């Protein structure tokens, strides 16, 4: 497993819950940094569609995600039968973080796992 965290950016295209200026500033920073990353229009849509991309992302090793609340992201993945690996996932919450803080976490900080710990498992899909 590659130890370098992969980056996933959610554009929350179909609702206005992420501040436009924050998400665009983060996307722009990722583009200008020249790093490799995955960008999705809306994680909720991929979850609703049980899109196989979520399985690839969940099973591919360390992952930093720019999206919304860690609890929501955790269960959006789990709902597709592809739970995130708690020890290898950090969610940067663009609903509350500033763009600068988000970019710092995504591009410069070490991975700090922050999914809520828990006991639950979703039913088999």
């Amino acid at each position, binding site marked *: 497993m590659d130890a370098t965290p992969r980056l996933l950016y959610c554009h929350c295209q179909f609702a206005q819950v992420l501040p436009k200026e924050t998400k665009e500033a983060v996307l722009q920073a990722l*583009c200008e940094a020249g790093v490799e990353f995955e960008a999705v229009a809306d994680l909720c849509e991929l979850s609703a569609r049980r899109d196989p991309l979520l399985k690839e992302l969940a099973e591919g090793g360390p992952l930093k995600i720019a999206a919304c609340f860690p609890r929501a992201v955790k269960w959006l993945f789990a709902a597709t039968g592809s739970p995130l690996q708690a020890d290898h996932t950090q969610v940067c919450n663009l609903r509350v973080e500033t763009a600068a803080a988000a970019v710092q976490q995504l591009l410069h900080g070490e991975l700090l796992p922050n999914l809520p710990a828990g006991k639950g498992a979703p039913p088999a899909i």
Partner: protein
Amino acid sequence: MSLSQPALRIALYEGAGAKKLSGAARFETLKTLLAQGCSVRRAENPGTAAVWVGDFDAVTNAPESATLRLPLNEPSLAEAVETSRTKVHAAPSGQWKPWFPVIDYDRCTNCMQCLSFCLFGVYGVDADRKLQVQNQDNCKTNCPACSRVCPEAAILFPKYKAGPINGDVVSDADLEREKMKVDISALLGGDVYSLLRERTAKAQSRFSKERDADKALAERQKCLTKLAALSADIPPEVLAALPSPQEIARRAEEAAAKARAALAPLPNA
């Protein structure tokens, strides 16, 4: 609405055979592709992307049939994406409902209150009788009523405006507030499952069915109205669109039967 197709997966390709893009060009291209509902991999390795977008040289290893050559400016890039989408049978952009419940199984106690409450058949149980979201398309946009009746704040709507329903951390204060807001059992006048069992027995006669229908409608209206008054976020159209008393009775019985079956002891237990 079909949710069986995956989103269109695109590689913003800058590997061998393509020029490096400037940060600004990447940003503008990404924004356009994301607005079209695409998933985009910005990498030298295109992975399993169905379509490659890039500023390709004359000779490249990109598959010609699935290649969009930059620069393509709005609206031509968007149009080209739509053409590619049709070719690879990817999901149409925007053809899904961004409002559906997501269950936090760390909190869910499988109490079936949401299943009993929802008249739209959103919830069901799996083979192990564990609650699951089965018909998310039936969910009424902007209505968080089921999350309000959940005593454990275990139902999320990620697009909701406020916590903990939007996925924010659940505090003790939230739990207390949720309990104060709605106790569906109390709203139904006691133990909900006893009441539902009682209703099933009564439903054996036509007279009882009619009586139950009226009662079921009144209960749901009372509950939804109370929820609306407390949280002011049940859309009026949801309140106005309640089905007929007969239909409510049928759906309530259906939901109650599912909940009863899920909660009944296993034969070998």
